Structure formats: structure tokens, C-alpha cells
């Protein structure tokens, strides 16, 4: 196996073929003779030398978290990545994925030059072309489509630090259909609920102050398993300092292990449990009334509304003992306000996600955990005035995905868009045909919400698929033209400015020259824009943007930033409520909304799902011989992006199907049996069989696999068909308020291989 993997060393060998020839002559000698020819082998002397190499500062791009990274190169080859101690995102640590960043760069399976498709879609036949040819191809193909259908026929999907450039390109071309899957495929519903309650979301870099918390109540947010470094640190730190952990999840995840109480809840009933807690807190007068009176809106309505959600009722729904619900509510309230109730990050589950997170947000409000240590801290802006960036005017065309005012999902932000809405529009050609996709670092085939039939048909409706990516993902294999992006270790990016507890600026500088014929996303988008004579919008390159920082930073600050890679702005207060400062709640009432006024109108028109206070509805249940399909992160991989990274594949290269022993007994299965998954709705059967893992760690009636595997791209010589793709077995639901996807109502049959 080792021989077929191009490792960094393997690459080095290829790159320095001449020196290899010389050393080959030496290694041709029998090595003991070589050893003895030296006067004396100083035993172990080799272990005293360490060449750290040249340091360049960067931030990680293996996942969205962007940890600070110091890149060490020896003789122009990256040797090691190490965490930047000063970066608050990771404080010097890197996870497995971050450490494995090198292997993703020195990977012969990468896209190595611009390519144009020659074979059928998905066949993987491309011809190598020049950059000019590729740009011209886009113009040649896209222009007629724009002429015929209008610029809005182009939809753009973006994920990664280079996002501003495809965004700019799409706007300049005149299409409003820009989506970032992070909203509808991930944290959309959650952010919506926080925003409706507190006026702001907890953001992608979540503001939970776990390190100082006395009690964390976590509704299936797997901090230890999804490993965003600072959060995982804080989680471990909080627990080490003695915080209680109530962990609510049908599956015993890596985080559940450490729980004081792990509540193995019935899938889809998290809201009922939260309502039960709220009921007990109100009933027993445990709310932090100081906070409620000062900052909250609608406590009386809430009191009335919660009467019906007794712990006994919640117990019936959730399968958790009423006494336990009461006890935990009491314990939680006892440590208020230094407590935090945390919803999942990817809250695209049962179609009641916004309301579920609303209930959890209310729980936080009643504890008064906002703006206090151990609760939820407040993000601060970098106190600098950056020059305003000029953007093209917002396009006149209506969005295709139903997001924005006057549309089906009026609350969904148009800056992020509904990716699932674009999939649907492409498939149904409504409200108008989408004929072209621009994919930047995204892979709809691995996280679409419309199933195997839907997404492939949608691809068929497209006349043009443009991909900008570092690697051949499943969807990139379907692209008509591919622009190879340099990896984060090979390119500049704009300064990374993060609003945070301690806000900071960090820089990305290339550690090496691009190995292959690749460019940064800025250059690629500028190149395309030039064909349309729109390249005026691309004025300053990322490198120039970095240099421009000197206009807003002092000389000393600039020096620190250059040296450390990070510039912190420390004179801030993340805990206003604890220090008596009234925070700014950007809700329509200016207060923390226990009762959401904004939803009143929709509630009247469209019913319970839009209730200003959460109303519980039973989840859809699988038929008798079916299982609910649950999926989640593994600590060893980043979404569906890293499954071709050899070192991460060593850590995990399969997705065993978790099943409860009782279910297994019923089905006549035992641990280690090989099984297929079959989608109960579409009949789609998994590509290959998987090992059954029979364990109490998963609730009866549900099966679980890890997310991100089962790639269909043959260009991935190592990751191809490793594990099973959960994507084909999830539901295509939509949360009615946020418009984000709902995956966990998908049901599967488990059949023997």
C-alpha cells in the first residue's frame, strides 16, 4: 500500500530526481558495509538534530474553523504544520485533519491544470487546456445561456476562504443566486432561532463559554467528535474544571462519554425535552428573574404557553424519566447564570429545527446565561475602520431559491441563500430554469438534500458546470470546465478578520510555490471576469489586500502581525451582562424574545409551525421494518473533503452501520455482519455492503453512519468507494421558518449482504 501512495517524501523523490540518482548509487552498496566504513557510528547521534525549517504563518483550510497554523518548510518542501499559539481559534493545537493538511497538498490526485470535459458527464475524461482556453470556454458557454435565460440562470455555491471572489463574479454577472451551503445544509435553522431570540446568532465560531461553564446542557453537539479545535479545548477544559455535562443524543458520541448524564433521547424529540425543562424551571420559580425582567420580552405569554409541557408529558415523548428531567432542570438552574444550553451545529434534522433551537435559546434566556462567563459570550468587532469595499449593485432578478422578503422563506438571509432551494429550482426549473452552476469548493453530490434521483436529474438539467476546486470531488467529476485552485499552503488570501471574544486579524502566506499549474481563487475569478469585461471589480489581489493593512494598522501592529501571523485586539468585554452593561439585542422588540413577535403574522396564516413560542409536534416515524437514518461527524475527517487524504484514511476508511442490539436481535443480525442500506422511499441501495456494529450506543429504531464517505469519484485513488454515502438515505425535508434542510426523517431498510 505504501508504495502506491504519493506521500510528501514520494513527491520529494519525484521532484528531485537527479539527487535521487546520486543517492541511488550510494544506497546500492550493502548498507552494513556503508555503516562499517565509517570510523565509528555514534549510536543515536542522528536523534539530536532537528531542523525546524523556515516558518510561514497561515490559517488552516482543512475545515471552516480556520485555526492558526505555522508552516515549516525545509528546502522548499513543507515538513510540518503546527498550531499558532497566539491564534484564539486553536491556541497552538491542531486536530488530526489540520495536521494532515500537508498530505492534501502533496497529493497526486489533485486537479493539476485547467481541464475541459471531453467524455460524458461524470465519466472523468478531461483534456488539459491553457488558462486562456478555459476562461474562453466559460465565456463561450455561459454567454448564450445568459442571453437566453438572463444572468440569474447562473447559480453559485461557495465554501472556503476564497468565497468573496465567486461572490463578486456572480454579482457582477448579474445573478442573485449565490448560496453558501453552510446555511441551508448546516447551521441555518440554528442561527435563525438564536437571531429571533437574542437578535444575533452564535455564529460559525460559536460563542459558548464552555471553559468557564458550570453546567453544559448539550443537545447533540458533538464537540469531541467534530473537533473544531478551540471548542474541543474549551469543552475538555470546562469538564476538567468540574463542569456538569448533560448530553442529549440518541447516539453515544465521543462527547457523550464524558457526560454526567447522557440522555438517550427518542430521535426528533429534543424540543419536547427542552420544553419539559422550561416547564420545570417556570413551575418551580427557578428562572433568573433578574435577567428576565431586565432584558426579556413575553415572559407571561411563555408561562401560560408552557403549562401543558409537564415533565410527565415530556417523558412520554422523549423516553426520558420525568424525575430525571426535573432533577436536571433543578441542577441546571442551580448553577445559573454560569450555564449554557447548546443546540447542535448542523441543525438540519427534523423540520422543526428553528423551533427546537428556539426552545433551547429560551432555556438560556431563562438562565440569564447571555453575556456572562460560563454562558454565552459576546463577540467583539476588530476596532478598525477598514475601507468600504465596493460591490456591484444587487441584481434585479428574483432569487430562485425562495429566500428573502416576499418569498416563501422571507426570513432566510439572501447573503447566504438556500442551497437546497437552488437544487430544487434546478431540478424543477421553477421559478425559472437554472442552466449553469459555479461550484467553489462545494460538492452537492455529497451533501444534497434531494436524494440520488433528484440531484443527478438536476445535474442533467444543467448546460454548464464550472468548478473551482483543489481536488476532484464527486461533483467536480461532473463539471464541464475545472479550474484548479492552489491549496491554502500555496496561496495568499485576504486578511482574515474575525469578530470574536478577543477579535483578531490573521494572515495567510504561501509556504511554497504552487506545485502544479494552479492559481488562487481571486486570479481564477478575475480571469473569468475578464472574458466578460468585468475584471474591473477585481482590483486588489489578496496579496495587495494584505499589504494594504498597513493603512489601518500602526507600524508596530503591522510588525506583530507579520511576525506572529496574528494580531489580537484584547481590550474588549465579552461578558457585558456580568459587568452590568446592557447588551444590544438586535431583535424587533430590542429585547430577548421569549415570545417572537416577528412570527405572529405567519403563525396566524400558516399555523403552529410558525408559533411565536415553540409548539411540539410528534416526529414522523419509520414503518415497522425501517430505521431512522442518523449521521454525524467523525473526528478523523472534514466533512466530505478529506476522504482521499492517506493519513486520515488510515484513521478511518469505513462507515460501520450502528444498530441497537435489540433491533439486531429482531432482525437476526449479529455484530460484524455485512449489510446494505436501502432508502425506504426511493429504493436506492448502498453501493457496497458495510459492517454492522451492534451497540447500545445507538437508540432503538435508528441506525447511524459517519458523514462524508462513499465517494463516487474515481480520481480519488485512495478514497474511492470507501464507506457509504449517507446522502442517499436522508430526507429532503425543509424547515418552514429558516428554509434550511431537514435530513433526519429519512428511513432505511437494512438488508443482509
Amino acid at each position, binding site marked *: 500500500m*505504501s508504495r502506491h501512495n504519493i506521500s510528501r517524501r514520494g513527491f520529494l523523490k519525484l521532484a528531485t530526481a537527479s539527487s535521487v540518482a546520486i543517492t541511488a548509487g550510494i*544506497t546500492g552498496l550493502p548498507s552494513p*558495509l556503508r555503516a562499517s566504513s565509517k570510523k565509528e557510528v555514534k549510536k543515536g547521534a542522528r536523534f539530536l538534530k532537528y531542523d525546524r525549517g523556515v516558518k510561514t504563518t497561515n490559517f488552516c483550510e482543512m475545515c471552516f474553523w480556520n485555526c492558526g497554523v505555522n508552516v515549516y518548510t525545509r528546502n522548499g518542501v513543507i515538513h510540518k504544520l503546527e498550531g499558532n499559539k497566539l491564534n484564539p481559534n486553536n491556541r497552538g493545537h491542531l486536530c488530526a485533519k489540520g495536521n494532515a493538511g500537508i498530505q492534501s497538498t502533496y497529493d497526486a490526485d489533485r486537479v493539476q491544470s485547467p481541464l475541459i470535459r471531453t467524455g460524458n458527464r461524470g465519466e472523468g475524461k478531461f483534456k488539459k487546456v491553457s488558462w486562456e482556453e478555459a476562461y474562453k470556454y466559460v465565456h463561450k458557454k455561459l454567454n448564450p445561456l445568459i442571453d437566453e435565460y438572463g444572468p440569474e440562470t447562473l447559480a453559485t455555491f461557495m465554501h472556503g476562504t476564497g468565497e468573496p471572489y465567486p461572490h463578486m463574479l456572480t454579482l457582477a454577472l448579474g445573478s442573485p443566486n449565490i448560496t453558501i451551503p453552510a446555511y441551508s445544509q448546516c447551521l441555518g435553522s440554528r442561527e435563525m432561532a438564536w437571531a429571533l431570540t437574542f437578535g444575533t446568532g452564535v455564529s460559525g465560531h460559536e460563542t459558548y463559554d464552555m471553559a468557564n461553564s458550570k453546567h453544559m446542557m448539550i443537545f447533540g453537539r458533538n464537540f469531541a467528535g467534530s473537533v473544531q479545535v478551540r471548542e474541543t479545548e474549551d469543552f475538555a477544559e470546562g469538564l476538567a474544571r468540574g463542569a456538569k455535562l448533560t448530553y442529549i443524543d440518541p447516539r453515544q458520541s465521543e462527547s457523550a462519554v464524558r457526560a454526567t448524564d447522557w440522555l438517550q433521547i427518542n430521535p426528533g424529540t429534543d424540543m419536547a425535552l427542552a420544553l419539559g425543562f422550561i416547564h420545570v424551571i417556570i413551575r418551580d420559580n427557578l428562572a433568573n428573574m433578574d435577567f428576565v425582567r431586565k432584558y426579556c420580552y413575553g415572559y407571561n405569554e411563555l408561562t401560560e404557553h408552557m403549562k401543558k409541557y409537564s415533565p410527565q408529558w415530556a417523558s412520554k415523548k422523549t423516553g426520558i424519566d420525568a424525575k430525571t428531567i426535573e432533577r436536571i432542570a433543578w441542577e441546571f438552574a442551580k448553577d445559573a447564570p454560569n450555564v449554557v444550553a447548546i443546540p447542535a451545529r448542523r441543525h438540519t434534522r427534523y423540520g422543526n429545527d428553528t423551533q427546537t433551537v428556539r426552545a433551547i435559546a429560551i432555556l438560556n434566556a431563562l438562565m440569564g446565561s447571555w453575556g456572562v462567563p460560563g454562558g454565552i459570550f459576546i463577540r467583539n468587532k476588530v476596532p478598525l475602520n477598514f475601507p468600504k469595499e465596493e460591490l456591484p449593485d444587487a441584481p434585479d432578478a428574483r432569487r430562485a431559491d425562495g429566500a428573502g422578503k416576499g418569498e416563501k422563506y422571507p426570513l432566510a438571509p439572501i447573503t447566504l441563500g438556500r442551497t437546497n432551494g437552488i437544487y430544487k429550482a434546478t431540478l424543477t426549473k421553477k421559478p425559472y430554469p437554472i442552466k449553469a452552476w459555479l461550484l467553489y469548493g462545494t460538492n452537492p453530490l455529497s451533501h444534497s438534500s434531494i436524494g440520488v434521483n433528484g440531484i443527478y436529474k438536476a445535474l442533467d438539467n444543467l448546460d454548464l458546470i464550472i468548478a473551482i476546486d483543489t481536488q476532484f470531488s464527486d461533483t467536480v467529476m461532473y463539471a464541464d470546465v475545472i479550474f484548479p485552485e492552489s491549496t491554502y499552503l500555496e496561496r495568499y488570501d485576504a486578511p482574515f478578520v474575525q469578530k470574536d471574544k478577543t477579535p483578531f486579524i490573521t494572515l495567510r502566506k504561501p509556504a511554497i510555490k504552487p506545485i502544479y499549474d494552479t492559481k488562487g481563487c481571486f486570479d481564477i475569478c478575475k480571469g473569468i471576469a475578464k472574458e466578460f469585461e468585468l475584471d474591473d471589480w477585481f482590483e486588489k489581489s489578496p496579496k495587495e489586500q494584505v499589504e494594504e493593512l498597513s493603512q489601518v494598522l500602526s507600524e508596530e501592529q503591522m510588525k506583530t502581525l507579520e511576525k506572529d501571523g496574528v494580531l489580537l485586539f484584547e481590550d474588549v468585554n465579552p461578558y457585558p451582562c456580568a459587568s452590568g452593561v446592557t447588551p444590544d439585542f438586535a431583535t424587533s422588540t430590542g429585547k430577548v424574545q421569549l415570545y417572537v413577535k416577528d412570527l405572529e403574522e405567519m403563525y396566524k396564516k400558516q399555523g403552529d409551525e410558525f408559533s411565536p413560542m415553540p409548539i411540539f409536534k410528534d416526529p414522523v416515524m419509520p414503518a415497522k421494518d425501517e430505521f431512522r437514518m442518523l449521521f454525524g461527524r467523525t473526528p478523523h475527517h472534514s466533512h466530505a473533503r478529506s476522504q482521499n487524504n492517506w493519513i486520515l484514511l488510515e484513521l478511518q476508511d469505513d462507515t460501520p452501520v450502528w444498530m441497537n442490539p435489540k433491533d439486531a436481535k429482531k432482525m437476526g443480525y449479529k455484530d460484524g455482519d455485512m449489510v446494505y442500506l436501502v432508502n425506504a422511499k426511493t429504493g436506492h441501495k448502498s453501493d457496497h455492503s458495510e459492517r454492522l456494529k451492534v451497540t447500545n450506543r445507538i437508540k432503538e429504531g435508528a441506525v447511524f453512519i459517519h458523514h462524508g464517505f462513499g465517494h463516487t469519484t474515481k480520481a480519488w485513488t485512495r478514497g474511492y468507494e470507501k464507506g457509504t454515502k449517507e446522502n442517499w438515505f436522508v430526507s429532503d425535508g425543509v424547515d418552514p421558518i429558516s428554509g434550511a434542510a431537514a435530513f433526519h426523517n429519512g428511513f432505511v431498510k437494512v438488508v443482509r449482504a
Partner: protein
Amino acid sequence: MNTSTAQKKQTNTIWLVLSCLVAAVGLYGMLQVFNNGQEASYGISREVPWGILIIGYSFFVALSVGTAIIGSLAHVFKVEAFHVMSKKVAMFSLAALIAAFYTIFWELAGPFHLQALRLVIYFTQFEISSPIWWMVTFYMLELPLLALEVYFLVSKKANSAFFAALVGFFLGIIAYGTLAFVFASNATRPLWHTSSFSIFFILSAIASGCAIVLIILFLTGNKEKIKSIKAFNKMLFILLFSMLFIDVWNVFINTYGVNSELSATMKLFIGKGVLANNFYYYELLGGIVIPMILLVIGGFKSSFLSAIAGLLVVIGLFFARFDSVVGGQLLSRPSTHMNFTQHIYRVSTSELLLFISAIGVLGIVYFLGSKFFNLEEEIH
């Protein structure tokens, strides 16, 4: 030179050619190692680092030491019945030892870089706590000794041959005991870390020596040597009986541990354990019980049946080595609070062919020696 000798010479040549063919299959394994390296070619792993090549080594060494001991019995104890075909037996012993070295050569690191030579270079480090160092020391003495013995026997220097045999007898026992110690010294492998392990090792080696002599007696048509056949039959029977006793009780006793590593290991050998088939059918039934029955049926004097029994004993010996070497490594756990992980050892094609080729190497050395020293003409 009479016709029968000519015929014998012809047969010898045929055997030699056959041996070369068998040895040639090893080329595949060598090619694999040369092109892809050992990791890719062998079935051994981090958890099971000792595979069929080490097993093959201990097997061939057992044959060598077994025959050396048997060959010297006649000299040492002056028992006339044992006094048969000393030259052939000594030659076989030498050949088996060379085959053993050949096998382990491929197991050691960097065969194409001749890293085995480092052993010679660093021998003067005197790593006296290392069982392997002692083993190497003894076999470095054993090899020339066996060569000398062959030389003395061929050149009919009876006295020198006697002394060589005498030293060879003790050195053989010590050397093979040290090889057993290489395994048994590992406190972390409870299956090996018992005194019965070494005893079984040496008994089975002597048994295999007996078996080889019986086979040679049959093949060379020395059917008139009924006295010798009888003596070796009885000796083999007693050895097999003791081996059976040790083997069976070893399993029974050790299975009765409470969740110890040893009892967990024993479960590999019984019931549905991965080594159970090997243990039941090849090691116990084929390697011990059936040979014993054959010896009894033949009334301890049938040349044919005892040769068959001998062959089975030799095959059984291989499986006994396989079971014990692999079985000792299959279970591991980093902490005593964890359950054992059962690892898998699958013999790879390259490994297997290299092992088979060692049989060829044994043949080549033996039949070459036979040709060179005119061993066919041996009469007693």
C-alpha cells in the same frame, strides 16, 4: 561401480533437479521483495511480526538439530542399533541448517542490502542479555561443527568424527534450547513463557530427527536394518507419547485460567478458535496420534509405515511450530483493562513460496553433498 550405484546416482540427479525446481519458486517471493519491499510482500504486521519465515526457520533448525542429535546418539551412547547412515544423517543436518539460515535471511531486514551482515559486525557488542545473540553464537559454532562432522565421516576419521558428534550432540541441544528460549524469554507472550514450551520444542525436534532417519532408511532401501528400524520406531513412539502428553495437558491446564491472557490464547486452539483446525487435525491427530497408531500397526518394524509416520511427524512439526509461534502473537491489548484484540495473520504468497523454496534449498545442499561425497555408497 556396480549398476545399483549407477542407478542410485541417477536417482540422486533427479532429486537434485527436483530440488532446484522447488527452490526456484522462491524467485517469485524474492522478486516481490525486491520490487515492493517486505511490508507489501509479507503477511506479517506490527502486531504479528513473526510469520512463516521465522516458523520455517525454527522448523528447519528443528530438523537439523533433531538429526544431529540422532546421528550422534550412536557415537555418544555407543548403541549399535542407532548406528546407521551417519554420513547421510550428518549431511541432512547440515543441509537443514543451511535451509534454516536461508529462510531467516529473507525474514531479516533489507535482504538485498545484506543487512544480515550487521549481525556479524555488531556481534562484538556482546549483547549477552539477548537470547538471539546466544542463539547466533551457538549456531555459528554448530554450522562449522556439522560441516566438520561430515568431513570427518567422509574421510573416515572415526575418532575426530566421534568428538565432533559428541560436541554436536550437546551443542545441538543447547542451541535448540536457546532458540526455544528466544520465544520463551518473552514475558509478554504467556503461551511461550512456560518451561513446557522449551521441553516440547526439544522433544519434537528429536522426534523429527527420528522421523527423518526413518524416512531415509525407507528411501535408501535399507530394509534389512530391522534392528535400527525397531529402535527408532520405539524411540519415536516414546517421544510422540511425551509430546502428546505435554500438548494436551498444556491446553487443558491453561484453559482453566480466569480471563488471563494465557486462557484467552488457549481458546484460539480449541472450539471455534482460529488455530483449532491446525491444532486438532494437523498438530495432534496428523502429527502425533496417527503416527503413533501407524507405528503400533507396523509392529514397530514396518519400514514403510514408519516412513509414512515419519513424514506425518515432520508435517505435524511444522504445524506445531506454526500454531505456537502465531498463537503466541495473535492476542494483544495495550492495557490490562481492555479486552484482547485478535489480530489476523495470513500467509502471503511470497512468504509461502520463500518457505517452500527453502525445502528446495535443503534438497539442493543434501543431494549435492550426496553426489559430491558419494553418500549413495554408504553401506551401514
